[in-house]
């Protein structure tokens, strides 16, 4: 006997969780392949390409959180979700602020370094 003798309920749960992982893997694969393919063979303009890559990355991050780390909107998950959102807020403030400040400084003092 390799499987633990699972109750019907547990078997259900197992099926569900297995599907979660597979679905997550599939979505992540797609969201990885799109930007790589576009970057390798696509003929989008640079700006559009960046936007697409960024969007795919963001969605893929959400996919990972949802399907691999099992963070959902369910009530008993709120604490973890809040923590992620708070972290995201701090990241936006700190990293966004940093970019704003630094590029403002560049534009005034060393425009040559602007990419």
């Amino acid at each position, binding site marked *: *006997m*390799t*499987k*633990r003798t*699972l109750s019907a309920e*547990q078997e*259900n*749960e*197992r099926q*569900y*969780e*297995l599907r979660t*992982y597979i679905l*997550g*893997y599939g979505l*992540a*694969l797609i969201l*990885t392949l799109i*930007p*790589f393919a576009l*970057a*390798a063979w696509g003929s989008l303009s*640079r700006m559009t*390409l*960046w936007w697409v*890559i*960024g969007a*795919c*990355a963001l969605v*893929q*991050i959400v996919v*990972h*959180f949802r399907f*691999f*780390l*099992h*963070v*959902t909107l*369910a009530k*008993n*998950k709120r*604490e*973890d979700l809040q*923590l*992620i959102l708070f*972290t995201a807020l*701090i*990241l936006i403030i*700190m*990293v966004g602020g*940093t*970019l704003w400040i*630094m*590029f403002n400084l*560049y534009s005034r003092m060393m425009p*040559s*370094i*602007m*990419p």
Partner: protein
Amino acid sequence: MTTPTSRYPGLNLGKGHAEADNACEELVFGFWVFMMSDLILFGLLFGIYVTMLGATAGGPGPHELFEMKSAFIETMLLLTSSFTFGMASLALKYRHDKGRLVAWLVVTLLLGLAFIALELHDFSSMASKGGVPSRSGFLSAFFGLVPLHGLHVTVACLWLVALLAQIAIYGLDKGVKTGLIRLGILWHFLDIVWIGIFSLVYLGGLT
């Protein structure tokens, strides 16, 4: 379809593992908080990388140094290892035997090691093209960010080896279970950071 109730991020061990499940609530939450702190660290390094994009100081830039193919393979390795770790977690939760769990873990470990090996190979080929951190601010920023992720993966692999040894000694006891759940979180987390790296550093740099 009922979603299983959950008490902490990552896969929940559930009622079948009452003792370990209880211990996880606090341990995993703590580890989760630590991951968030680590995420700030990476976020800032991403920010610095962007501010240093123009600081090539006449040295080689992304187009001369990065290779899309190996970035792609690395991405696949890591993503697949995330999936296999998920399978390992399920084996831990629903099966009696260690065999399947250990098998999935070993597969994960091998994928992780392959990732590290490929990354090291990348770095050395960059170095042979003059891409070393002492060359420019841009390269410093690259080597501050990407190898830090690699270092994390190395630590995760080391932890995995330690846990395999613990499985060999203690079997699937509480300590091993809580350890595996936390390592799982680290593993998936590192994959998330890698999404940032391949999108921003490699794809962003190569377009």
